[in-house]
C-alpha cells in the first residue's frame, strides 16, 4: 500500500517535471518571437516617419524612404491575387462540390499538396524560364505576379476546400430539393456561407506573397527605380528584396542600417496587420452567419 502511494507520488512528480519542461519550451518559442520582434522594433522604430513611408530612396539608399518598394509590393500582391484567387477558388469548388470522392480527386489533392511543398526558389527558376524567357515578359510585374500567384495557388485551393467542407450537406440537399440546380445551390447557398472562411484564407495568402523574395529575384525585382511602375511590364522594387539588398549591398552599410531595420519593421507590420485583419474578419463574418 505504502509503495503504491510512493509510486503515485513519484509519477506525479515526474509528470510535473515533464509538464514544466513542456511549458518552459513553449514559453521559449514565444520568447524567441518576442526577441526577434523586439530587436527589429527597437532598431527600426526610430527610422519610421511619414517621409520614410512616402519618400523615395535618396543619397545612395542611405536616406529617404521606401515608397516605391511599398508600391511595388502592393502591385505584386494585387497581380498575384488577380491570378490566383479566381483559379484557386474555382479549383476548390470543383474538388469539393463536383468531383466526388474518387481517384481523380485524390490525384488532384496530392498534386495540390505537392505544389504547395515546392520551394520558392524553384518557383523563381520556373518563372524565369517560362514567363521571363519563354513567353518574353522580361523582368516585370506580370512575370513576378504570375510566379507568386502559382506559389500561393495551393493555399487558396486548400482554404476554399476547407471552407466548403465545413458546410453541412443538409444545406445542399435542401436547396436541391427546392428545385435549384447544382450551380444555383453553389452560387446562392454554399458560397455565401463559406465566404468568411474563404476570405480569411485569402488574406493569409496575401501575407505569404508580401514576404517572398526568392521567386521575384529573377522575375520582377529591381534595385532602384526613381518612379512608380507605369505598366505591368515594368520592373518594381519590392520590400523583401529591398531589405535583402540594403542589408548586404550599398557602399555605406552603417548609414543604410537604419533603413534596413525600418524596412524590416514595415514588412513585419504589414504581415501583422494582415493577420489581425484575417482574425477580425473571421470573427465578424462568423457572428453574422450565426445570426442568420
Amino acid at each position, binding site marked *: 500500500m505504502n509503495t503504491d502511494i510512493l509510486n503515485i507520488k513519484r509519477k506525479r512528480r515526474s509528470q510535473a517535471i515533464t509538464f514544466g519542461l513542456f511549458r518552459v519550451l513553449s514559453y521559449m518559442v514565444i520568447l524567441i518571437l518576442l526577441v526577434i520582434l523586439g530587436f527589429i522594433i527597437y532598431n527600426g522604430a526610430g527610422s519610421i516617419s511619414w517621409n520614410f513611408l512616402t519618400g523615395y*530612396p*535618396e*543619397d*545612395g*539608399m542611405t536616406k529617404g524612404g521606401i515608397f516605391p518598394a511599398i508600391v511595388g509590393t502592393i502591385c505584386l500582391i494585387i497581380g498575384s491575387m*488577380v491570378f490566383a484567387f*479566381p483559379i484557386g477558388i474555382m479549383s476548390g469548388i470543383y474538388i469539393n462540390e463536383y468531383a466526388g470522392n474518387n481517384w481523380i480527386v485524390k490525384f488532384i489533392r496530392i498534386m495540390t499538396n505537392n505544389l504547395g511543398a515546392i520551394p520558392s526558389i524553384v518557383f523563381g527558376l520556373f518563372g524565369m524560364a517560362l514567363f521571363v524567357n519563354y513567353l518574353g515578359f*522580361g*523582368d516585370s510585374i506580370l512575370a513576378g505576379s504570375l510566379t507568386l500567384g502559382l506559389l500561393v495557388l495551393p493555399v487558396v485551393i486548400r482554404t476554399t476546400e476547407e471552407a466548403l467542407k465545413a458546410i453541412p450537406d443538409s444545406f445542399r440537399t435542401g436547396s436541391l430539393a427546392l428545385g435549384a440546380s447544382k450551380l444555383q445551390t453553389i452560387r446562392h447557398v454554399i458560397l455565401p456561407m463559406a465566404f468568411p472562411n474563404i476570405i480569411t484564407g485569402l488574406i493569409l495568402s496575401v501575407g505569404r506573397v508580401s514576404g517572398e523574395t526568392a521567386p521575384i529575384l529573377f522575375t520582377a525585382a*529591381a*534595385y*532602384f*527605380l*526613381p*518612379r512608380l511602375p*507605369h*505598366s*505591368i*511590364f*515594368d*520592373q518594381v522594387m519590392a520590400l523583401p528584396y529591398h531589405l535583402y*539588398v*540594403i*542589408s*548586404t*549591398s*550599398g*557602399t*555605406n*552599410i*552603417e548609414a543604410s542600417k537604419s533603413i534596413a531595420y525600418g524596412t524590416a519593421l514595415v514588412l513585419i507590420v504589414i504581415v501583422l496587420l494582415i493577420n489581425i485583419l484575417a482574425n477580425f474578419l473571421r470573427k465578424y463574418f462568423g457572428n453574422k452567419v450565426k445570426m442568420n
Partner: protein
Amino acid sequence: MKKIMIAIALIIGSTLIQTQAQKIKGSDTCLPLTQKEAENYMKANSKNRMTVVGGGSGVGFAALTEGSTDIAMSSRKIKFDEKMKIQDGGNSVKEVIIAYDALTIIVNPKNKVSKLTREQLAGIFSGKITNWKEVGGADMKIIPYSRETSSGTYEFFKSSVLKNKNYMNGIMSMPATGAIVQSVTQTPGAIGYIGLAYLNKNVKALAVSYDGGKKYVSPSVASAMDKTYPVVRPLYFYYLNKDQKKVTPFISYVLSSEGQKTVSEIGFIPVK
C-alpha cells in the same frame, strides 16, 4: 466579373501608352554610384527617367545583347565572347570609363598584420597559406571571404591578385560586398576584398605590395589617382553604337565635373 474585365482592359491599355525610360543594368559595384548619378541627373532634368538595376556585370552584357537595357555598367572589361555575341547581332559596343575603383584588402581591426604582398595574398586566397603566423601575424586561422562567382569583383581579384588561378576549394562566398564587411567586422581571422567605397571604420585596410615587398602602398583616393596603389580597376559603361544619341546626355553628365564630384563623394576615384 465585369470589374475584373475593366481592370484587365485598363492594365492592357496603360501598357500601350507606356513611356520609354532609359535603362541601366549590370554590376552591383557600380550600383550605388550609378544610382546616385541617376538621382542627381533626374533632379536636374526632370523629364528624363532612368531605371537602375543590378544583378552583376554579366547580366548587364546579356541584357545589352538582348536589347533589354540601354547601358550596361560593368566592373570588368567586356569579355571577348560577349563582344562577339553583340557583333553577331549586327551591333557594336562603345566603352566609356566612368570612374576607377581601388580594390581594398580588409581584415579585422584586431589583426596585427597591416601589409601583404601580392604573392602572400594569392597564397591566402588559393588556400596555400592558412595561418596568420605565416605572414607575420598571430597564431590564428585565416578565414578568406570572397564574393560570389557572379561578381565582376570576383573576376577582377582573380585576374589581378591570383593571376587567373582559381580560388581555394570551398572559399566562403558572400552574396554582396556589404556582407563581406559585416563578416570581417565580426570575425577576428577574416580577410576579404571590397571596393574602396565600402571601407568603413569597422574594418582595417591593408597596404599591398606588387613588387615582392619592396614598396607597400595603402589604398586611398590619392594613391589610386597617382597610380601607386596597384589594385585599381576601371568601372565601365557600355552601350550600343546605335544608341549613342540616346545615352550621350547622361554619360556626359557623369563625366562632367559635377558628375565626377559625385564619384569621389561615393568613394570611387574620378577619371580626371
